[in-house]
């Protein structure tokens, strides 16, 4: 192979890639227009039209976001707090479109592909453990928030770490690509943290903590409770510290689809005003949950109570 040819092949490869992304960029709006053309009801939107036409709603779910959306016993049936809310939305869509036999199709999403899959039309509604933030609002719309988390520390009971100020000279592990990682790197010097380790996922982070490679594991409190409950000896670990940052979880839907967003928001708000949300919360956070019948024992935070009293779709 000559040098010239190798340069050409690079150019070809990159041109191909750009071409592919450009293609998908063009195709999707065309399909959307078509759907809009067949619409009879002016108030319905792209997603509602798509659902009506196909007779199917595609729900995005997670496989291990305990207790929000995860696979417990049946590999084809996600369960969880966010999944229950998702089903409330499906009921509302059935009523709105007058389609009692609307079919549900489940589509597994990961933290890497959830946003592309919602924005390219594969998934109609994703409810899992997705934080509503400004960067994501550029790509998708969020429903009203349904959970509020704070970033705290998981540590061994005898480690002497009681809050973020106790981390001086110590090693801390957090999961790569999370808001916690970003926050703690910004404040590393100020808190005098010895070393920050960014692990691949939550299980990996907890493994670093159990292995003694880090003194504490910083993450969303509810996720820490989930990891703790999975440990061989859950009583060895405790969640400590005052959360320096809070985040709100919401369901994701396609950007600018006001008609569908209205249906989603109304369905979620209805569970708030009827008080049904409290039953759902108790079921998933304060009672034994499948598959191992572990009780997370996670009290409803004041922030979440405030969110339920006055629902909103902002990031703070």
């Amino acid at each position, binding site marked *: 192979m000559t040098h010239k040819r190798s340069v050409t092949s690079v150019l070809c490869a990159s041109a191909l890639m750009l071409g592919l992304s450009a293609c998908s960029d063009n195709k999707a709006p065309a399909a959307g227009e078509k759907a809009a053309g067949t619409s009879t009801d002016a108030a319905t939107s792209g997603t509602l039209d798509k659902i009506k036409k196909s007779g199917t709603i595609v729900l995005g779910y997670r496989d291990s976001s305990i207790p929000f959306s995860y696979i417990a016993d049946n590999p084809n049936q996600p369960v969880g707090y966010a999944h229950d809310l998702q089903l409330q939305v499906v009921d509302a869509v059935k009523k709105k479109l007058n389609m009692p036999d609307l079919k549900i199709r489940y589509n597994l999403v990961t933290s890497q592909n959830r946003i592309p899959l919602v*924005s390219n039309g594969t998934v109609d509604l994703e409810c899992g453990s997705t934080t509503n933030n400004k960067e994501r609002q550029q790509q998708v719309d969020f429903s009203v928030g349904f959970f509020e988390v704070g970033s705290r520390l998981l540590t061994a009971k005898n480690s002497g770490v009681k809050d973020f100020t106790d981390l001086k000279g110590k090693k801390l592990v957090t999961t790569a690509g999370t808001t916690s990682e970003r926050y703690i790197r910004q404040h590393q010097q100020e808190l005098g943290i010895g*070393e920050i380790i960014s692990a691949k996922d939550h299980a990996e982070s907890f493994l670093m903590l159990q292995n003694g490679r880090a003194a504490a594991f910083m993450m969303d409190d509810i996720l820490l409770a989930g990891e703790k409950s999975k440990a061989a000896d859950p009583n060895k670990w405790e969640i400590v510290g005052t959360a320096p940052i809070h985040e709100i979880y919401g369901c994701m839907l396609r950007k600018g689809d006001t008609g569908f967003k209205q249906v989603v928001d109304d369905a979620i708000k209805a569970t708030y005003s009827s008080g049904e949300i409290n039953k759902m919360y108790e079921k998933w956070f304060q009672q034994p949950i499948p598959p191992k019948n572990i009780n997370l024992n996670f009290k409803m935070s004041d922030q979440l109570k405030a969110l339920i009293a006055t629902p909103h779709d902002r990031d703070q």
Partner: protein
Amino acid sequence: MNYSWNWSVLWQSTGVGDSTYLQWVLVGLGWLLVIALVAWSIAMVLGSILGIMRTLPNKTARAIGTGYVTIFRNIPLLIQLFIWFYVVPNFLPSVIRDWWINDLGANTTALISASVGLGLFTAARVCEQVRTGIEALPVGQVNAGYAMGFSTAQLYRYVILPQSFRTILPPLSSELTNCVKNTSVASLVGVAEIISQMKTISEYTQNTIEIYTIVTVIFIVINVCLISAMTLLEKRLYVPGLIAGGK
């Protein structure tokens, strides 16, 4: 697709210190090169020794070579790395274990585990290629060498290896590019190489398609450069009559 494109994502501030995402990508690239270089050096040295061992008359040497290849080539790289980083330290004497885990720091030990782990894995593959190169030579050359009064060491040094290494240059080039691509498994143990930086930037900015494309192009450029260099080497070392060099 309802996607807001932002190709200038690399010049945005990360919000950590005053770094930009470009600096993160470059840091990731740096670690990629460090891991690839260390791993490839280990792989070439160890792989050549093992490959030669597998062709020696000595039965023990052959058994060691075969055993190594069986273990290191048949266990997935990801699992090997997991074992080196999470399992092996637990069986070290406590003094060494404390030094390894507490004094060295997790990022250093992760980097060492990843480089050495990848090197040992690639060595098994290089070993097989070296063996193939040696076995591809006509057996008459070996006999002729012995007839001339060469010792086994001299035979390998002056007759076998100069020819077999030239023969295996093309498959070694692909092994080299594989080694570069396999550095991405280092993200498993927490090394901030380019794939883990890519995932982090994608999470922070949500410009997933842009950043994945940029990193893809970086990988293509690195590997095309390496292949070009190897092709040049093939041409320089080309022996007329022995496997077509670089054509």
